[in-house]
């Protein structure tokens, strides 16, 4: 193969890599739907037997449990995402201002809750949260979810501020803008897109969180994810699969809405 043909083969290789990624990402979701419409799943059957919508009917009948769990998940996700975005911005900016070893230490602190298993965080937090009266409350669970979420958004904003041109803020000040005016008229509008992305990031961290919810929520805060997990533990596979399918929908809608919003917004990446 000549050098030229090797290069011309690259685009198709890239295309195949994208297809592989798509297949790898979609496979569990497709299987999820298949299982949710099968009556049961016995070895060695690959796709289950007795197709039907029994699981979805059962799910509909359990709306009394499902809807409160959905609302709890949404509330926790929105709260965690909002706080993680709002707090992650100044923290990420402060981290980007650090130099030398302090920057390394700061980034390490932000990375620690991301790297540590949520179970370890949960075990560490549950007693202190209990003593503080936060155990079993939505506020306590939100704060617990915020620990890894804030790690993610702080690191995210550290990257954003590494390329953010502070010159625009200095220019605004030179043109007469005070600190608040600079923030509201220049900085935040320019960071609208990263803020939205950080919100989605925080929401997704909270939405998928199980160990922290179970340990800090102490069974009293029941999210959709926790409900689905209980069906899995009870061996109700089709029901768990139908519930898990529902779990996927809100994040997909959120990401779709965010993507549409980004396309419409004339936001310039600084």
């Amino acid at each position, binding site marked *: 193969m000549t050098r030229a043909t090797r290069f011309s083969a690259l685009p198709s290789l890239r295309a195949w890599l994208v297809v592989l990624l798509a297949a790898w990402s979609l496979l569990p979701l497709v299987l999820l739907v298949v299982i949710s419409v099968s009556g049961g799943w016995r070895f060695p059957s690959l796709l289950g037997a007795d197709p039907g919508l029994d699981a979805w009917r059962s799910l509909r009948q359990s709306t009394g449990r499902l809807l409160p769990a959905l609302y709890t998940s949404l509330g926790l996700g929105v709260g965690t995402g909002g706080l993680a975005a709002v707090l992650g911005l100044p923290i990420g900016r402060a981290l980007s201002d650090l130099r030398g070893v302090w920057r390394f230490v700061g980034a390490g602190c932000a990375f620690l809750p991301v790297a540590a298993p949520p179970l370890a965080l949960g075990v560490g937090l549950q007693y202190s949260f209990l003593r503080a009266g936060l155990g079993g409350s939505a506020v306590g669970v939100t704060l617990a979810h915020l620990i890894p979420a804030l790690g993610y958004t702080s690191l995210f904003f550290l990257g954003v501020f590494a390329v953010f*041109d502070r*010159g*625009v803020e*200095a*220019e*605004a*000040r*030179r*043109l*007469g*803008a*005070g600190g608040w*005016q600079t923030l509201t*008229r*220049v900085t935040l*509008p*320019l960071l609208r897109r990263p803020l939205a992305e950080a919100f989605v990031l925080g929401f997704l961290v909270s939405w998928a969180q199980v160990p922290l919810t179970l340990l800090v929520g102490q069974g009293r805060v029941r999210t959709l994810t926790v409900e689905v997990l209980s069906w899995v533990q009870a061996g109700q596979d089709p029901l768990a699969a139908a519930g898990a399918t529902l779990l996927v929908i809100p994040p997909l809608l959120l990401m779709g809405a965010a993507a549409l919003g980004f396309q419409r917004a*004339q*936001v*310039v990446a*600084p």
Partner: protein
Amino acid sequence: MSVLEVEGLAVPFGHEPGLREISFTVGRGERFVLVGASGAGKTSLLNAIVGSLEPSAGRVRIGGDDVTRWTVNRRPCVLLSQTPLLFPHLTVFENVAFPLRVRRVPSGELKERVEEALAAVRMSGYDERRPATLSGGQARRVALARAVVSRPPVLLLDEPLSALDATLKDEVRRTILDLHADYRPALVMVTHDLAEAGRIGDRIGVLVGGTLAQVGMPEEIFRGPATLEVARFLGLPNELDGVVEKDGALRVGGVCVPRPNTGWSGNLGTGPDCGRRQVRVVFGPDGAELAAVGFTSNDGGACTGRVEEVVHRPDGVNVRVRTELGVVELGVSPDRIPAVGRDVALRLRAGSVHLYGNDAGSSGGRSVPS
């Protein structure tokens, strides 16, 4: 009356002394141009005036108020940066309106003033465009409109014509001069381009070695650089060693140039008037001329040499001649260009050479009185 007064300003560059003892004033409607080599501290000086940099000593007064400790946004001056930094998320109209919005100017007046500013820079009709869709020249003009829309009494321009092609340069220069004529702020412009400084400045200040080495009208600066450093900054191509004799005549090698009636230009230092003095002799292409045929090195101020190179420039033709004094570059008439290798006689023009004594210091020099 002076609108801007800078008094004894010092701005360190990290651990280096940086700018020291900078003092000058600019009156209403005056155009003051600061020139200096790259890294001389021109932009730092503007940043210290506008408040982006904190001076270690000295004062800045605007309209009589001591603004040295005022925050950037409170100072009644605007700095137009070298690279125009338009807000990418705002339209052209909103960019220009920005200084008025932060000052809470009523919307009717705001619209009128923005449209007026855009018209002044010939950018009417671009209101809804985004900065990303503008050319370099258009972006500069919008930035200029934004800088003047609030009519600051002091307007600071940092290399506004750098990195522009000749046509755009003309366009932006004309816009600056029109705007200045329109509301007559005290204008301070920074450039390293001497030709631009001469075109725009009513007065020029030369920043050399961290100090304002000379301030004067363009012709004063160009005709009589006060120090050797200023002369070097002006790019005068010839620098030779010489001696001023007791009678005031200059001797460079074997060439003797009688003292001109107006006295020597430059700075001979503070030594005793009697006795010989070692000097550096600096002059431009007009400091020497080809002598008429028949001149010999025995004649006053003349020597002979061989043409080494002919240099064609936009403003004329220079020839480089190797003489007993060293290589001398002088201007010649385009219709009398000597061929390379030809022997010529040349003569120093006493009125166009500048002498600097070895003890004249590196700054703060003054022209030698005639």
